[in-house]
């Protein structure tokens, strides 16, 4: 029997329409808008000004503070302005507008397709390169990778876990990367193992990607310490704590980090970006985005430069279907609806999902029937309906006691609720309030 995590979980219809389609490049647009906040943590400080000439890979935003990541230009051209733009957060935030002229790359970047496995660098040097390249978790959470690879003092990583689960329905960008860049990802895994000083890595892939499991299995045979594990298809297996449980049987306790059980999790796409940054000096300036939907003419996996407007990607798959009711950035479970098609692709855009209008709207909320379905599907063992009610009545100490801060916002509760209650909407609100209260208490 295939492994999976122990508590909760759901299995939405997979809908991986674009799984068989090879990655294609989107043409570089005439103008890119690169947001200065593409990661969790402090937004970047711009280091270019209006009129500056930039090349592909030029640093344009410098990380501020500990949890932050550099941002580089994804095109060559001239900086038009630094102004606000609506990004995937739904608010207007600072971004660098660049007019594209030609496609000139920084000389230091190695653009050859050759595989480079050997690495002479020390783990500190690798880590510095990762930080300089502005790599963030590319599964969607966008946590700066170099911070994650620096375990807090006193903790010792034992195993590296590679997240090739891609548990979100519809999305296939990681799947395609794993199929087309297998060797690069394997080389990246050895780099991360070197940084962490671990001798064991497990690649977790869900069983709906049998080709990727077979391909990695073939390469992993030659690499001691690296193994591939097929997992039962179950959402949200891509969550760090769920994946660690599925692969190692260890459970991360409430409020603790994965490192507390000796595990570090990295997404397959992130590992590829690490390989490119360390071996090819290429900063994180492009990513694969799955553009798909029920009525999309040609669902695709597109390699897009950061800052490309979503509309360009939509045009590349045959245009916006007429009956589109909602455009989601990311997967259908955890993604965010966009307010405009001009929203630029960022480091965390794993997909653009075009939902037809009959399916886009939510059903009217009804009273809770106490069926406890949300409780049984919650992968963190929480009681979503209780948390929603406590949040509604602003009982913050109660929500804290019921571990609202453990919520991973996977949306399984809202998905499963037969009364269509907006459980996650409220829990997310309560969680942010409780986190603010806890922070205020500490200071």
């Amino acid at each position, binding site marked *: 029997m295939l492994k999976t995590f122990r508590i909760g979980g759901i299995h939405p219809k997979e809908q991986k329409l674009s799984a068989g389609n090879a990655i294609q490049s989107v043409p570089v647009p005439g103008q890119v808008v690169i947001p200065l906040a593409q990661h969790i943590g402090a937004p970047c400080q711009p280091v270019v000004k209006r009129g500056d000439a930039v090349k592909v890979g030029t640093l344009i935003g410098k990380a501020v503070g500990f949890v932050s990541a550099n941002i580089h230009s994804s095109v060559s051209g001239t900086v038009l302005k630094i102004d606000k733009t609506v990004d995937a*957060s739904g*608010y*207007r935030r600072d971004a660098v507008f660049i007019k594209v002229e030609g496609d000139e790359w920084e000389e230091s970047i190695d653009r050859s397709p050759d595989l480079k496995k050997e690495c002479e660098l020390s783990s500190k040097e690798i880590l510095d390169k990762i930080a300089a390249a502005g790599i963030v978790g590319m599964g969607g959470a966008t946590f700066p990778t170099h911070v994650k690879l620096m375990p807090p003092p006193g903790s010792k990583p034992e195993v590296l876990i590679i997240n090739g689960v891609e548990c979100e329905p519809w999305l296939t960008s990681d799947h395609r990367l794993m199929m087309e860049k297998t060797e690069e990802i394997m080389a990246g895994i050895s780099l991360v193992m070197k940084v962490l000083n671990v001798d064991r890595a497990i690649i977790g892939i869900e069983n709906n990607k049998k080709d990727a499991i077979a391909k990695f299995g073939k390469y992993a045979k030659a690499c001691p310490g690296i193994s591939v594990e097929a997992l039962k298809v179950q959402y949200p297996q891509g969550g760090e704590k769920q994946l660690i449980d599925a692969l190692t049987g260890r459970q991360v306790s409430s409020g603790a980090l994965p490192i507390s059980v000796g595990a570090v999790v990295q997404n397959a796409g992130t590992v590829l970006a690490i390989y490119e940054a360390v071996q090819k000096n290429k900063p994180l300036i492009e990513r694969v985005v799955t553009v798909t939907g029920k009525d999309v003419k040609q669902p695709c996996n597109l390699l897009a430069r950061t800052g490309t407007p979503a509309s360009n990607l939509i045009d590349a798959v045959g245009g916006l279907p007429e009956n589109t009711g909602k455009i989601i950035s990311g997967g259908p479970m955890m993604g*965010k609806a966009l*307010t405009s098609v001009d929203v630029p692709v960022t480091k965390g855009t794993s997909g653009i999902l075009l939902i037809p209008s009959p399916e886009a709207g939510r059903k009217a909320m009804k009273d809770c029937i106490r069926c406890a379905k949300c409780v049984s599907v919650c992968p963190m063992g929480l009681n979503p309906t209780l948390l929603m009610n406590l949040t509604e009545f602003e009982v913050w100490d109660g929500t804290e006691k019921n571990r609202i801060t453990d919520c991973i916002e996977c949306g399984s509760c809202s998905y499963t609720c037969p009364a269509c209650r907006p459980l996650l*909407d409220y829990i*997310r*609100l309560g969680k942010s309030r409780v986190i603010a209260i806890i922070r205020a208490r500490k200071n």
Partner: protein
Amino acid sequence: MSVLLTAVVTLGAIGAGSAAILYLIGQKFKVEEDPRIQKVQDALPAANCGGCGFPGCASFAAACVKAETLEGLGCPVGGQATMNRVAEILGQTAPVAAKKIAVVRCGGTCERRPRTNLYDGASKCTVAAALYGGDTGCSFGCLGLGDCVESCTFDAIHINAETLLPEVAEDKCTACGACVKACPKNIIELRRQGPKSRRVYVSCVNREKGGVARKSCGVACIGCSKCQQTCPFEAITIENNLAHIIDDKCRLCRKCVPACPTGSIVELNFPPRKEKSPKEENATIDA
């Protein structure tokens, strides 16, 4: 008979003994409480709204008795009359506080601020505000989901079904400030009610640059500073592309209202002007 007698005597003795013990303990651990606290509390409206800044009427009463002067203490619900009574009980003079009222600083009705998207998540402003800027181009304006309505204990604020903006009922609002705290966009402000309820205020909180603000809403403040130049009393400040009329300095001359090119300054409860300029048309009541 004797059984009955024994029972009555024994129980009577136990009762009397316990009463004596309770009395002695009561005397020993007696807490002296200022009798004025109860008196002050009785004079308060018992709304327990928290508008005074204290958890309830009882703690406000205790604070009044403890304080040396009543300066800075005020009951927004009871207003001046209540505070005069409190002062009388305490043998002090009540400070004269201007009556305040909540104003909604957003004039983005459906026509002036077209909807750019449709929100169908949980019907709560704080939830929507955590998700995105709102269902119009203006990410500062009212979301219209009624967190303020829910927070009001006095039934003084309601969403107008036509404009989808909250409206304050002047006779019911006690300026307790619950709606101010509830609004995630900080649109509601407590302002001086003014003589005959006459007020002038900037009905916008958009801090975008003029062009962006104007594009998203027809009555947005664009920070052009025309009102600031017009004001004879230096009562208007412009910060982050947004004008604000300082309550204490404003003398209600209304000169700024026609000066505003977008009509974002609102005048309330004034008699009609002698010559009506077309600009003023935009600026009529929608608080």
